[in-house]
């Protein structure tokens, strides 16, 4: 179906703070939806946006399709219900680092484990914004916030490691400012059958400004991130002169410079997003600055049967074999007796 960006904008006034990274993700979604609708031949009424609680979770109000603004942490469970109830829908879950990884951690990992066909946009700004500045499960160790005036004393989650650890079938990462990359990822996520998690590294201009400044900084972005493409060598840098190899002595990824020590493009690892084995994907998702570039793009995309398909197939299979076809049959099944 042919749509333009305006078709997916609701009339609601957007209430994020000026300069919030969520605007950029919103822009990417507005660009992605018409493409998804066209490529998958979806009509607008097939899209449903479901969210939990947090700044990003206001998102469904701003998209002109079916929307459900849930309660804190439960977006994954609600979207699971929506998708199983009507597998025909394209379900998009909007969640944040608090919503998905703290209060909703349980539902989040189980949605991924089941591989239910929903697209999850995980807005990670490493802070609680809506409650005005407390640390989140992704806040860096030692970060000073309102509830950690002397610095946090707990290690953060790396969402990618969590998702791949739960054998997620699709994991991608983008930066708020990389609208084009975000759009591409969203289209691929929509096409992927199964749980697609897109970690969106977003800035919180008020409570955690420059949360991802080290990598989003325009000057150094290309040197500090690597955009992965399936089938392409893992090369990055402003001058495309650095790449990733596997250091076989330590079984770790290592940055090398092309042209130095006889290294050529042939020595560089080629990204295989479709590898069922989670090992290398885990390493890529876990790369941390400043030693390693932060991986962006689609890190993992593997095929597996989806939960909603399995539910539907089992239903059809059981129906085909059943001798009981209606409630009257059911009530009269098994041992019964007549009173004359």
């Amino acid at each position, binding site marked *: 179906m042919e749509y333009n960006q305006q078709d997916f904008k609701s009339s609601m006034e957007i209430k994020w703070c000026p300069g919030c990274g969520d605007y950029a993700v919103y822009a990417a979604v507005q660009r992605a939806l018409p493409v998804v609708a066209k490529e998958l031949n979806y009509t607008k009424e097939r899209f449903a946006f479901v969210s939990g609680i947090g700044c990003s979770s206001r998102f469904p109000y701003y998209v002109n399709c079916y929307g459900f603004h849930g309660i804190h942490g439960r977006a994954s469970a609600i979207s699971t219900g*929506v998708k199983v109830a009507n597998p025909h829908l394209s379900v998009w879950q909007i969640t944040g680092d608090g919503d998905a990884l703290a209060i909703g951690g349980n*539902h989040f990992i189980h949605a991924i484990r089941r591989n239910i066909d929903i697209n999850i946009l995980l807005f990670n700004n490493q802070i609680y914004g809506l409650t005005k500045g407390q640390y989140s499960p992704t806040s860096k160790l030692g970060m000073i916030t309102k509830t950690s005036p002397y610095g946090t004393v707990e290690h953060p989650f790396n969402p990618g490691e969590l998702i791949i650890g739960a054998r997620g079938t699709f994991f991608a990462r983008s930066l708020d400012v990389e609208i084009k990359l975000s759009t591409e990822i969203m289209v691929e996520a929509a096409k992927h059958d199964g749980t697609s998690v897109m970690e969106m590294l977003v800035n919180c201009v008020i409570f955690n400004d420059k949360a991802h400044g080290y990598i989003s900084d325009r000057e150094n972005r290309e040197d500090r991130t690597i955009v992965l493409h399936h089938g392409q060598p893992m090369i990055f840098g402003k001058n495309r002169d650095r790449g990733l190899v596997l250091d076989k002595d330590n079984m770790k990824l290592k940055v090398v410079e092309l042209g130095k020590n006889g290294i050529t493009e042939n020595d560089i690892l080629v990204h295989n997003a479709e590898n069922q084995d989670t090992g290398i994907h885990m390493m890529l998702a876990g790369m941390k600055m400043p030693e390693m570039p932060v991986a962006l793009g689609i890190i993992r995309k593997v095929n597996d049967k989806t939960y909603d398909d399995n539910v539907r197939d089992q239903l059809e299979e059981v129906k085909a074999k059943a001798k009981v076809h*209606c409630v009257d049959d059911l009530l009269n099944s*098994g041992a019964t007796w007549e009173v*004359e």
Partner: protein
Amino acid sequence: MDITKRIEIDDVVIRFSGDSGDGMQLTGTLFADTAALLGDGVSTFPDYPAEIRAPQGTVSGVSGFQVHIGSGIICTPGDYCDVLIAMNPAALRANAKWAKKGATIIVDADEFNEKTVQRAGFATLNPFEELGLQDNNIIMAPITSLTKESLKDSGLDNKAIVRSKNMFALGICYFIYDHPFEFTFKYFKNKFKKKPELIEPNKKVLVDGYNYAANTHAHANTYKVISKKKDKGTYRSISGNQATAWGLIAAAEKANLPLFCGSYPITPATNILEELAIHKNLNVKTLQVEDEIAGICTAIGAAFAGNFAVTTTSGPGLSLKSEALGLAVMTELPLVVVDVQRGGPSTGLPTKTEQSDLSQALYGRNGECPVVVIAASSPSDCFHYAFQSGKIAMEHMTPVILLTDGFIANGSEPWKIPSMKDYPAISPPIVPEGDADYKPYKRDALRLARRWALPETKGLEHRIGGLEKDFISGEASHDPVNHQKMVDIRAAKVALVQDFIPNQEIIGETGGDLLVVGWGGTFGHLFSAVDYLQKEGKKISLAHFNYINPLPKNTDEIFKNFKTIIVCELNLGQFADYLRTKFYNVRFEQYNKVQGLPFTVIELKEKFEQLLK
């Protein structure tokens, strides 16, 4: 009054007890089903431990199953038993308190020795004397050794042979109560379809048990319950949880929508989920999700997407679902939450019955958060009230909490099978495509229900959620006056359900000396006690409630013409307190019991007789 004599003629209560691995639940069920086939009134009550297999031979591992059969209306499993079958000393020790004075005690003599008697915690080597049973009719049947003898040529191994000793005990009971074998034989044939080598041995042991009793004159008399004519029709036996599951399926069928159940296993509600999972062929989707919260949240998502959504739980699970129930109230989506009540608080008494979740069901949420509360009152009427819960949820666009309890959920009784053509249609207010007028929170005048616009319907795209809604558009609104209006209208919508439920019935005269008020699963016991006293000419009536919120329209009327009103419930007085908030000028006496057990008819009669003096 001499109950024992009366009961011996009209009805009999048998309690089967043994180790939780001894197959007592099955033995009791087979006895009950045969009685039901003969046309007797039947009520059963399993009494099992929380542990699946506690240490053998200890009191904590004893599992019991009580069966009450009779010619008249049998609506309780009986207070105390006429016959107690105890497969070992521990079972005897745990169950002796349930034996009537003079009851027949049948024990497996092979299991009574110094070691087992000590293991069961007896202080002496004469357990019968210790329990004060020495004057009872005690039948010391060598059940284990006779079962071994009976099957010595069967080719089965020792373990399998010993396992069928429960059938020997059942055979003894079949002799005493003159039960035919056919139904049980048919059961074996079905049950052991895949292990046909077990069919004949089980039949043989059952018959040998029967013959043993006949030959040894184990019992001075045999009894036969002469069945009274029942309503013509087809009958079956049904338990409360099964009936609940079927009632929900029936509501989905009448609404022509798929049934969606998101749930998490919890005693004693689990077998509703299990039962629903079997019937996928009837367009039932069951999701065993990661926790109670996911159970209700997947259901809410499914309701938004247009399925008839339910979630099933017990007390602690209802606590976990509270926040999400608020979301369902705010989004005004149809949802049925089944709470099979058990003993609380906290983990409490998971396998025992109680009615102590009433206040939680009525009030246990943040904000002004009314839901419809309905309670079923017998195993078979769980079907009707589950159906009604679905009808009200879908037609009034509201969450409904259906309260049952461990007693009626696990108990079973014969049920005249209804025909779905006699059940009303269910017409949820689904918005058709192309309705230009659609506003998410516009309501109909009759029910104040908003309409249900299902995702994938062209032109009805809308957003709803947990934030307060604008009165018409449903968009998020923080307007103070709008909030008041919305709080009022949500309350009014639930109150209006009153126009769609039947008036409260009174069993007996509409005025008199004593009105007994009950609700939910205590019906059988209250009815039996009231019925007995009515037959003695006492001016006593019963008002037993199924619709709790809202209450039936005529509720205040029925309280007017009685000298005394007593509210009986298995908690500290939650329904009585609720009634006091509604009818502040009525005086309500209370009778409460919180032991994890049902009332006994005897204790109720005593209490009522006191008040009638």
